């Protein structure tokens, strides 16, 4: 019969393995990289007025407001498409269903703040939209905190703090002097995702198993 200490140790190992196996990363490193690239491309096109010229061909649009929404919506669609492809590829590799229990839990956690973000994205003007998006996106990532890796929680806090600081600077009138909505988007949705991708990119580390010999393999 094992001692109480040994039994406790075994239960601890079981708990930690189960937690590790059920961790779900809502934003993978390649998805973050795609998001960062999309933000950079969109802002570059915008700064060179290429995007505005293209939008002007659609007479029914109001360029000053709609171009902001449309270009960042396109960036979102691109990032989501990359994310879907990656999830599909990983599900096929594992032989798991596309909508895994982890993904379902993440969707349930992400939905309320993302829904709020979408509504604010549609109704607010371009000055306020970026800070609301950052706040709600940050809240969405933090909502997955109980089953997400620590890096996602850090990313969530970064967006939340940046959004709140942005909002306070809008309130005291310093936002437009320091930043434009597009710069804010590039700094947060571009910059933060680039940093996240760099920090979490999967690295192949040779694993040395003590006692393992070539004949084991």
């Amino acid at each position: 019969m094992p001692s109480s200490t040994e039994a406790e140790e075994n239960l601890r190992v079981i708990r930690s393995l189960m937690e590790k196996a059920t961790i779900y990363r809502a934003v993978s490193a390649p998805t973050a990289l795609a998001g960062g690239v999309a933000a950079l491309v969109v802002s570059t096109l915008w700064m060179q007025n290429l995007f505005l010229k293209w939008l002007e061909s659609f007479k029914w649009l109001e360029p000053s407001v709609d171009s902001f929404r449309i270009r960042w919506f396109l960036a979102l669609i691109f990032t989501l498409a990359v994310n879907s492809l990656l999830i599909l590829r990983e599900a096929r590799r594992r032989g798991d269903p596309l909508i895994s229990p982890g993904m379902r839990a993440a969707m349930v956690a992400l939905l309320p703040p993302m829904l709020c973000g979408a509504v604010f994205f549609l109704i607010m003007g371009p000055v306020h939209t970026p800070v609301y998006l950052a706040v709600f996106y940050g809240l969405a990532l933090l909502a997955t905190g109980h089953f997400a890796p620590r890096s996602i929680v850090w990313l969530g806090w970064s967006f939340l703090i940046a959004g709140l600081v942005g909002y306070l600077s809008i309130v005291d009138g310093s936002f437009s002097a320091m930043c434009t909505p597009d710069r804010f988007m590039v700094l947060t949705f571009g910059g933060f995702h680039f940093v996240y991708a760099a920090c979490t990119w999967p690295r192949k580390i040779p694993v040395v198993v003590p006692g393992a010999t070539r004949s084991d393999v």
Partner: protein
Amino acid sequence: MFDFDKLDKIIHEKGRLGIMTLLATRPSWSFQDLKAELEMSDGNLITHLRTLHDNGYVAVTKEIRDRPQTSYSLTSKGRKSFQDYLTILEQIVKAGRQ
């Protein structure tokens, strides 16, 4: 009152306990994913999986997708044995605290 001598000796081994734990979290696991998660050598993992399979705890599925892939899952006997094992461990911990 539990009979502690009933503690499953097949599961009560560090490597096999890890395998049983992971198999309890998902419907099935591929060999490569188990290996990566448990950081075991191929030989160790194969030996433990064979022991579990021979005792009827683990089912093996071999299929060819892009390449041959072997996946493992808990049988109903394996799941029940794992639950019983957990229950007995909890009883031991409780008994130790009293």
